[in-house]
């Protein structure tokens, strides 16, 4: 453990939510140019995945209509968000964490200690944290309604796991599973 790591403080709920919001804003900004290219293809896949226009689809009503109207942006957003969060694997911080001066480190406590290298730990953390986004992107690529339901369940589980486990003095679910911690 370096002296810098020893002097770092674990980051609590507020900073992490804020970094998530910043990442989301960057994801939307990235989705804007992507909507002109990949977005149209993803919107086409969403038509298959959600059976849009089919008589037996459940994807009806004003909210699906509003989302569908900007479908090229909405349905490429999971991929854009994944890309925005990808630096967390390699550099320990994506845009939000970098701007707030916080970063991911391998855990040093007994409870969270991991034998994984930082890169592997970062990858495991990214996969767990982004499980909902990954499964939603996969569901879109496959055009599978079942996969979309699974993706939704995974997203809710990951989000619930984050809120249930994160405390001022403890790590979020994906940190616990990956053996990482987020420090300032």
């Amino acid at each position: 453990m370096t002296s810098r790591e020893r002097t770092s403080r674990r980051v609590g709920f507020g900073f992490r939510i804020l970094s998530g919001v910043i990442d989301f804003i960057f994801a939307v900004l990235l989705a804007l140019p992507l909507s002109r290219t990949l977005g149209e293809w993803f919107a086409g896949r969403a038509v298959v995945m959600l059976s849009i226009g089919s008589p037996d689809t459940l994807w009806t009503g004003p909210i699906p209509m509003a989302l569908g109207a900007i479908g090229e942006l909405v349905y490429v957003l999971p991929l854009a968000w994944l890309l925005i969060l990808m630096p967390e694997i390699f550099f320990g911080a994506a845009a939000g964490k970098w701007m707030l001066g916080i970063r991911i480190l391998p855990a040093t406590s007994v409870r969270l200690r991991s034998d994984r290298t930082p890169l592997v730990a970062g990858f495991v953390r990214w996969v767990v944290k982004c499980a909902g986004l990954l499964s939603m992107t996969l569901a879109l690529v496959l055009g599978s309604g079942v996969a979309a339901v699974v993706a939704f369940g995974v997203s809710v589980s990951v989000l619930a796991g984050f809120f249930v486990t994160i405390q001022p003095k403890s790590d979020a679910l994906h940190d616990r599973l990956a053996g990482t911690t987020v420090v300032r």
Partner: protein
Amino acid sequence: MRHRSKWPPLFLIALFLAAGAATLFAPEAGPRGACVASAVGDDRTIPDIVGTWEGTWEDTIYMVSGSMSWTISPDRYDYIGSGTIDLTALGLGAQEGSAGGGITRQALEFTYEANSVGSGNGVLTGNSLVGDGLVTAPLNFGYFTFRGTVTSEAAEGRFFFVSPTGGAGRVTMTNTTPVESTSWGSIKAGYRNDDE
């Protein structure tokens, strides 16, 4: 001051540059398919559309609907219209709009707009209606096209948003106060006579 890696922002910049570069090669966004057609040259007469029109719009993809009403009046050599579209289902309530247009070579060309909805234009040639529009903020539904048929008593048509996941549906309207046995030409002629 703690050292921060320079790689996250560089990665971000590279990502946005790549996405931006890909956009340069993307086809231009805009209405695809049925843009406003120019008037055909045959001698079809335009139905009398003056009156109060009542009807509904219905998105048959997302099962959302509302009412519409328009009042169309002659305005010297042209016509003007005003009306409302009920967007309560979308949380916008009833939005007011206006329209205006004139006849050019057997075609009635018109534009329409509503502050909180968008704007567009169309052409009525004989009984055939075609046009397009753009739904702007706050809904931002994007470009749409429409086509249909219009008589002096009724109008029906279909609209299509150009996004692959965009809505599509139909509009049906009835002229509740048609100007009976009065041709558009005679209305215009009447106004011309008034000027003389």
